[in-house]
């Protein structure tokens, strides 16, 4: 029901803005109230105060309305998870030409077969590693992209590349671009929320940063280990005052600000401030509520299980239900900011533990979204900043591999039970239908109804975009 209300509000809001937005598109300009203000001067916005997070019409009909990114920092190994390579066992210890590359790190050893068993699942018969038994049950809802590649085999740069489409931290994140382009369907929550248990992924807040986009598009971060809803947003709670006392105080502030507004006749900042104050008041109640998973049924909580990551998955569902546009949930255990990097020394120990910590939660999220009819319009993306080489590092580990790795997507307009692209026979490099991070980002924007070449923001005299001058939409994975 709540969801329907948001839908209605969204449609009304978009209709209202339609004519102005049409005018904008004809002129080939960027989108958003901010772009509008800079184009027409303050005239256009003065008449109608537009919250930067008000829903905005996409460039074309979207397949997905919201995005949940399950980010796996550190680089999960493709050949030990979803990219089954039986040839590794046959050629164990060998060093074929494809792995003999100068820029691939630490590949002086030979090929190492996956220590995990693989089985076939679903109608599509997808081979999945034994460390993801629950996700394996969902393969018929998933598109696997096996031909991902990126620019750099180093965590800091790779993580930024994934989240910002750039190696420098001074660019807006994917989530910021999306909220800038689409606004949010919630009036009581930030449009973009990032979560992780314990450690933030390397790069921390830059991963959800707005950079030169207005601050309203920054991701708000919550640590789901501490699980203090008030930590989502600083100063959410007043230490001493009741809600009624605070209302009385805010009524006075509203009056004083209104008197000033009357003196000035018109002041854009002041009008925006009056609105922002009211939303702040509402957020104090709505934010703790949405993070309170005790409201969920026993059955639902059982489906997700007790792990920290699963709690994050459940909250992610509650957030998108409330109209949050983008949720990024990063994996981490033991406070390590690049969790999957434990693969260096020990694939068996590191990867098995990490998979166990997230497998049930991820599967539950997919099933729960599907059960509620939300999966069709919610895009779920799973993956890290790069993969790991099929050769061994030390006895039982693997080093970074940015030439080929796997990302999977579910819901939100992508094909089901489908695999796209491939790595070579050993899983080292993407060879068929290669998909760069820019292509993936262009595709995500496309699924959300945005043209990655038109979603621009003029800053310091240049039109910036998420994909810089790159990116091709991968149409073949779209349902």
């Amino acid at each position: 029901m709540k969801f329907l209300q948001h839908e209605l509000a969204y449609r009304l809001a978009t209709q209202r803005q339609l004519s102005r937005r049409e005018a904008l598109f004809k002129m080939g300009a960027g989108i958003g109230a901010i772009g509008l203000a800079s184009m027409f001067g303050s005239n256009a916005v003065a008449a109608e105060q537009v919250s930067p997070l008000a829903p905005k019409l996409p460039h074309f009909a979207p397949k997905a309305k919201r995005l949940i990114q399950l980010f796996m920092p550190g680089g999960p190994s493709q050949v030990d998870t979803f990219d089954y390579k039986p040839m590794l066992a046959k050629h164990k210890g060998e060093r074929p030409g494809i792995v003999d590359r100068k820029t691939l790190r630490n590949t002086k050893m030979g090929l190492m077969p996956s220590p995990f068993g693989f089985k076939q699942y679903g109608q599509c018969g997808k081979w999945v590693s034994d460390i993801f038994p629950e996700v394996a049950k969902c393969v018929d809802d998933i598109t696997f992209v096996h031909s991902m590649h990126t620019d750099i085999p180093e965590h800091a740069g790779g993580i930024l590349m994934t989240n910002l489409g750039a190696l420098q931290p001074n660019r807006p994140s994917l989530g910021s671009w999306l909220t800038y382009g689409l606004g949010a369907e919630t009036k009581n929550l930030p449009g973009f929320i990032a979560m992780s248990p314990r450690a933030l992924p390397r790069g921390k807040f830059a991963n959800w940063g707005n950079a030169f986009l207005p601050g309203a598009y920054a991701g708000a971060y919550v640590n789901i280990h501490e699980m203090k809803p008030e930590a989502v947003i600083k100063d959410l709670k007043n230490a001493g005052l009741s809600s009624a006392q605070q209302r009385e105080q805010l009524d006075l502030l509203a009056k004083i600000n209104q008197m000033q507004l009357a003196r000035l006749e018109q002041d854009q900042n002041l009008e925006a401030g009056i609105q922002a104050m009211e939303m702040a008041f509402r957020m104090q109640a709505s934010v703790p509520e949405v993070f309170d998973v005790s409201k969920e049924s026993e059955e639902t909580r059982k489906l997700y299980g007790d792990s920290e990551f699963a709690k994050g998955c459940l909250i992610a569902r509650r957030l998108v239900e409330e109209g949050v546009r983008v949720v990024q949930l990063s994996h981490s255990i033991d406070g390590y900011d690049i969790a999957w990097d434990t693969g260096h020394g020990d694939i068996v120990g590191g990867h098995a533990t990490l998979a166990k910590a997230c497998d049930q939660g991820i599967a539950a999220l997919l099933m729960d979204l599907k059960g509620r009819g939300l999966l069709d319009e919610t895009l779920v993306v799973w993956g890290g900043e790069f993969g790991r080489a099929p050769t061994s590092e030390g006895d039982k580990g693997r080093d970074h591999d940015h030439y080929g790795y796997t990302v999977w997507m579910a819901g939100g307009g992508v094909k089901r039970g489908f695999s796209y692209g491939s790595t070579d026979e050993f899983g080292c490099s993407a060879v068929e239908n290669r998909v760069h991070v820019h292509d993936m980002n262009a595709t995500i924007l496309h699924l959300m109804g945005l043209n990655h070449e038109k979603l621009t923001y003029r800053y310091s005299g240049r039109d910036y975009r998420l994909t810089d001058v790159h990116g091709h939409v991968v149409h073949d994975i779209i349902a």
Partner: protein
Amino acid sequence: MSAAEAEKLEFFENKVRPLLVEFCYSCHSAEAEAKGKLKAGLRMDSLKGLRKGGDSGPAVTPGDPAKSLIVEAVNYRNEDMAMPPKKKLDDAQIQILTEWVQMGAPWPGSDAAVAGPHGSEPYDWEKFRTGHWAFQPIVKSAPPEVKDAAWVKSDIDRFVLAKLEAAALKPNVSAERHLVIRRAYLDITGLPPTPEQVAAFLVDESPEAFAKVVDSLLASAHYGERWGRHWLDVARYSDGHGGFGDDRALPNAWRYRDWVVAAFNADMPYDQFVLRQIAGDALKENPDPVATGFFVVGPTYKDDGGDPEAKAVFEAETLSDRVDTFSRAFLGLTAACARCHDHKFDPITIKDYYAIAGVFRNTRQKEHPVSPQAEVEAFEAAQAAIRDQDKRVKDFVNAAAKRLEKKPNQVEAVLEEEPKRELSALRMRLDELKKSAPPPFETAHCLQEAGSADMPVALRGDLRKPGEMVKRRFLEIIAGKEPPPFTEGSGRLELARSVAAPNNPLTARVIVNRVWGWHFGEPLARTPSNFGMLGEKPTHPELLDWLAADFIEHGWSLKRLHRQILLSSTWQMSSRFDEEKFTKDGDNRLLWRMNPRKLEAESWRDSLLAVTGELERNTGGPSTDAIWNSKRRTLYIKISRAGDVFESDAFLRLFDLPSPAATSEKRVTTTVPQQYLFMMNSAFMKARAEALGNWMRELPGELSQKLHTAYQRLYSRTAEPSEIDLGAQWLGTNPEPERWHRYAQVLLSAHELIQIQ
């Protein structure tokens, strides 16, 4: 370059080049040639190559798809020449290539030469020099005549009024006097005036009353704190902690910050200000190394080891920061765009980029001593003595070990009485030396010369793919054809002199424009760090030039410029809304009013502390991260580059401090609910409210009198009767202290305190 040309090039970059790269380069590029894989002798990675063609003749005839083999090939018309061979392009892709040939095969940068009218040159330099406003010499034209001469207080007003009159707009009347003085205090010092200061001005009827206020404000140490902070935005100042291979702390960054503040307060001529920040360490007379902190407070990326790719990327990123900051801050040019290819829109070649990058590649960071020489020497002497004594101990032990045929760590146990005493004495002496050594001397993060080698162009920005060597030199568009190479050390001093030269058309314009923007909320050219083709042209080009020329003529004095601006009718105008004028010029490009705006994070926090009487006004010194306990100005609060290290980061970002990851040209103002949560719920606001509430409660007089006094202190004006009534009603009779606090919190959260009217 015209907008249409730029659009064509963008079409090429976005649509055409990706196709060529994806489908053609593996057989038809320099790389393919190098690998011996070039097919049909055809190169498709330059227009020259396409026009020259391969074995079958020219691949492209600009403007004529019918005569272009590329079009024939992609249409699979000829069986022997169906390209790309694996799979035919789809119709949309074929259409793109055809359209591109049709529009004349636009190709950016050096390759445009072939198609363009300017011979072997990448750009039509002359056209840029004479056609683009920012590259033309600065011309001081006579201030125009105006109809309403009575409004004119200075030459600035003539330029502004002439434009308004041409558009049939009238400037707003002067702001009320209490607003003018409040605005002046906030603008020049970032702090509101006290009620006494306001009162003194209101009773001073002399014609020089306001000039006196301005002079006293410019003489105040708070001026440098406010205006130095503006410059620190440009300098992407932070106390380090960037993350991403840049996570080192910069514990002495504050010395550069203090240098900036002092330079503003001393009215250091701007050309000197520039010279010193680029090459202060290399000056022969009065070297000023601390100033070079300008570069060192930026990001310096270090890879986490392992692969050469990352190493190259991180060095390239660091150099890019230096070139980007240098060119945008001082010249208003986006030279870093030429890192991978010739600049697409501005006349900056990839060689220009590596000519400048080469200068910084010959430079390294140094911890420069700032303590008195005697202290430095005493420290170093003591450390040398410690090292010597340490060696004596080790030598003694080793000799004994040899003699006793033991390992050094076993010697102690078996040593005879006499040598044991000797060793103990040696060790005691070492301890004494360590104890008596003076503490380390203090240092600043500075630049130092580190060589004089040229560097090659990095193909596609990749340092592992060296191209042609480039001499270190200044930008060709300013220095002229084949600029003389730099010959002294890294070349930094010569680079600095090229920027600070009075005939450089950019330097003075750029700073004068920035200063205007910091006074008015919008600069005359609204992209103050980009004076290139994609930047905005100035709204008042003659005024900008007049100010720049006047600035140079009068010794590059910033204080004089501030005075000039504040004493104009233009600056003193009311910021009031006017429906009719707003309809005509809602963006206020013609300057019919002062722009209404919000205070920056720093000035707002400083104002809160000032009106509650808590502000500590001492200047300079190390930064603190104790933002909630410190009562010092916000300038002295730590900022991390990543924005997530200190308590202060969250506050500053919430109120729009720009990210110091890169140079910032102007602040963006946002209004978000989280700002109001801060006002409603933060411990900081509660503490300020208690201070103000207690002060109000203890004021002499009736309740209404108390409220009057508070309004004077907070907003520099008399309260209206309705405001007094509202307050009195809310407080009730004999209000408890707690009620006073809550009332005070409302007054502190009011928009009037965060705005500049």
